[in-house]
């Protein structure tokens, strides 16, 4: 039965972070967000109408025309472009493009309403399960992927049979928060969303911060092009993510947690909602976790299409129903996060690492890395590679080993021309600089970074100027508009890579690029504007001849 405006609004008003879920309910009920709906929500939640309208327009996926919610959206991310996404989009009347939707190990994804289809042609789209990560080479010990190929893991009973929720039970019944944090600290685990901040230190900062209630946020807004690891974890091992969130709640003393999921993962949304209610029914989550009297409520919140919401302070503003600009820091979320409460924002992979660390110990986790590097990292490998997919590698593994031994080498036996790092945010590595090990020190020494672990492979047949243009177009599309260097800079870089504007003479062109790169890196307000110039910098560094030809128009 269709629910009325009043019913939807009165139900939302009793919830934490009500705006996004309410917008989604209207979006799905009406097939778009009508003026009438926005007026009702504005009055119901007491949000100024102009603010609400502006905020709705910030998100890519909120449709404001009838039928818009169900209209097809075709992924036009870098890897999908290799697969012919532009032609597919053109062949589908009424369809629009969307930035990388996190399925670079599959054919081109097409989102229709709340269903994801994949395929290479409009008449050959099908619905598929998220690919299971390819098997790791014999002798490899995995952390977050250890059980991911066990199909029973999706269910609560299957998860518990393979040791699931034992870490949480142990933590709430026989560990203090300090002991828990000490284990995480000693494990060397650091933020796997890309920033690499030591997880134990973050949890301790929230635990020690004054005020409350404290909050845990799982950042599942996996928007970085070429990154699709968090979806694999959530789809195949959802309870591991929930258990990790609950452990972070125990460590920090937070009674509530939010899982902020990107819009483009509707099936994951359904699956997580079910997992949360199963865990609550079993007394694992809810108001009496394992009979300890402790409350841990996990709230699932769905984004609406904005890469910047993966930036933690934008994410917090988005949760709170505000315009999702990044916040100025300090203060940091660990003291002033969700509704100004001390908040631990952690990536899916980071949180999913907590249960095995608590069960097997800090030394075990540390030992999974190579040499002095602690632990593992999931790499999303895609593009011109024989076996694209998610690989959980020991930190310190040579990139060449991953590409050649684990993933079968370049596709069609072609020569690899370049790889991206950190999805797109780390720019390109090419030539001898691809001789790195997969850890931050090694990659940072080349002027890039590992970040969230997305690596896209481009073989010798690819036009790297065109690839760089697509990358910058993405950053320009996703720039929030708050700070000048990113808002204007990403636009100018895009125009210059497209050949639409800019000096026709090479040295002036390079001067403009160098100045833009330097100013964006030094003065941008958040990581988007700081990282985008790595694309142009690395393009100019590794592909000077291609750049020269591009500028001279030949």
């Amino acid at each position: 039965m269709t629910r009325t405006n009043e019913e939807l609004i009165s139900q939302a008003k009793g919830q934490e972070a009500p705006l996004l879920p309410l917008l989604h309910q209207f979006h799905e009920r009406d097939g778009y967000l009508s003026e009438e709906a926005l007026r009702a929500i504005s009055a119901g939640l007491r949000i100024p109408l102009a603010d609400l309208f502006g905020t709705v327009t910030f998100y890519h996926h909120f449709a404001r025309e009838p039928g818009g919610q169900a209209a097809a959206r075709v992924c036009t991310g870098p890897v999908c472009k290799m697969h012919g996404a532009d032609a597919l989009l053109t062949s589908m009347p009424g369809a629009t493009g969307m930035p990388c939707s996190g399925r670079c190990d599959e054919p081109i994804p097409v989102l229709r309403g709340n269903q994801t289809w994949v395929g290479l042609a409009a008449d050959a789209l099908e619905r598929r399960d998220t690919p299971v990560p390819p098997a790791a080479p014999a002798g490899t010990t995995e952390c977050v992927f250890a059980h991911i190929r066990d199909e029973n893991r999706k269910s609560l009973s299957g998860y518990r049979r393979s040791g699931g929720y034992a870490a949480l039970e142990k933590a709430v019944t026989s560990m203090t928060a300090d002991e828990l944090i000490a284990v995480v600290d000693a494990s060397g685990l650091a933020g796997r969303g890309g920033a690499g901040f030591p997880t134990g230190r973050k949890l301790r900062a929230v635990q020690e911060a004054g005020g409350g209630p404290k909050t845990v946020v799982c950042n599942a807004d996996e928007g970085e092009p070429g990154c699709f690891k968090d979806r694999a974890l959530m789809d195949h091992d959802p309870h591991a993510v929930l258990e990790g969130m609950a452990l972070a709640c125990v460590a920090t003393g937070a009674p509530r947690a939010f899982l902020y999921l990107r819009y483009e993962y509707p099936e994951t949304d359904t699956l997580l909602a079910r997992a949360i209610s199963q865990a609550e029914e079993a007394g694992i989550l809810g108001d009496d976790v394992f009979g300890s009297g402790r409350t841990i409520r996990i709230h699932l919140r769905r984004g609406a299409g904005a890469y910047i919401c993966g930036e933690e302070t934008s994410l917090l503003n988005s949760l709170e129903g505000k315009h999702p600009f990044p916040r100025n820091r300090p203060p940091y979320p660990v003291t002033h996060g969700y509704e100004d409460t001390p908040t631990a924002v952690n990536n899916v992979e980071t949180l999913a690492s907590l249960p095995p660390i608590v069960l097997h110990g800090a030394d075990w986790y540390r030992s999974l890395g190579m040499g002095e590097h602690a632990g593992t990292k999931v790499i999303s490998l895609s593009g011109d590679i024989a076996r694209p997919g998610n690989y959980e590698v020991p930190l310190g593994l040579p990139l060449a080993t991953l590409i050649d031994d684990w993933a079968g080498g370049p596709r069609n036996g072609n020569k690899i021309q370049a790889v991206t790092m950190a999805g797109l945010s780390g720019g390109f590595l090419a030539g001898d600089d691809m001789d790195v090990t997969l850890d931050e020190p090694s990659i940072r020494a080349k002027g890039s970074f590992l970040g969230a672990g997305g690596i896209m492979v481009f073989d010798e047949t690819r036009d790297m100027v065109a690839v760089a243009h697509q990358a910058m177009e993405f950053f320009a599309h996703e720039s929030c508009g708050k700070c000048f260097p990113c808002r204007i800079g990403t636009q100018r870089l895009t125009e210059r890579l497209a050949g639409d504007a800019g000096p026709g003479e090479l040295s002036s062109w390079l001067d403009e690029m160098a100045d833009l790169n330097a100013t964006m890196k030094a003065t941008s307000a958040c990581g988007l504007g700081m990282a985008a110039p790595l694309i142009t910098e690395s393009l100019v560094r590794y592909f000077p001849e291609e750049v020269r030809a591009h500028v001279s128009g030949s």
Partner: protein
Amino acid sequence: MSDKSGLTLFLDGEEVPFTRGESIFQVSERHEKEIPTLCYDDRLDAFGGCRLCVVELEGARNPVASCTTKAEAGMRVTTRSGKLEMHRRVLLELVVSENREVDVDELSGYASQEMATLVDRYEARTGRFEGRQSGASRPDDPNPFILRDYDNCISCYRCVRVCAEQEGDYAISIMGRGFDTQITTEFGGILKESACTFCGQCIQTCPTGALGDIKALRHKEIELPIEKTRSICIYCGVGCSVDIMTKGDKIVGILPAMDGPANEGALCVKGQFAFDFVHHPDRLKTPFVRDDQGELVPATWDDALDKAAAGLMAAVNEHGRHSLYAIASGRAPNEAGFMMQKLVRAGLGTSYIDNCSRA
């Protein structure tokens, strides 16, 4: 060298005191460092958007926005260096590149020259970084007060913030994102159909003239210098300070006084825009009384007052003191209101007096 709190930091090598809670920008302003900025308005929360105010902070990897960074004891801050000045110049070249024009008439608004002034200070009219321009003007908005020339908008959002933080109207907001960002009302409509009260504060904080004072700009062709005369708005008892702009003997516009103790830069639609009556041909400049034929004829003040007094007393004598009812103007200051009370209560003997905003 320290104040009572004893907090100091090093500003370009010099140890200076500060108060807890001050931003680096505020401390630097006090020491006349003239850090450039375009998104800053000291009445609003620091925003950190334009990034022109970045300074070097010892120990920080990147320059920090001085407006949003709180001063801390022992900080070592550099407000000017070759690198900082280069970044500031690039940022200004970028805003020049996104706009139709840099120079706008001074009548556009109080802050309208900020961008042009900085662009000249940094010699940023280089033509570099040319490309698509941002912002779409709204010539379709027929309101007679606020020019919405968004071709010249640089997305500093001072208008949106002043509307929310100072005026509390929340009439305008930010549509879209990135380079396509556009200042909007709900559903992209015109101001009259929004929550706008036409107070004009958005105009006065706009640093580029993208929002302009239409009434003042009517007089931009008069080739005389603008003179400003400090006065008090005549409309109500609040006593907002204004600077009346004149060209020759013509009032061409009103600027809110940012240092006005009652208004701190705020005005309402009447104080901001309703000054045309001053030069209106119908405006009364002398009293009129009716002659024996009932026609209005010019009179002296003495004649007019005598006639009014006679009429009022006649009414009291004939119909009693409660036959009169006085309404005082809401524009009247306290002193005039007091005199009116005196006249009505002591002179005419009735307590029937009220204020126009309640009558």
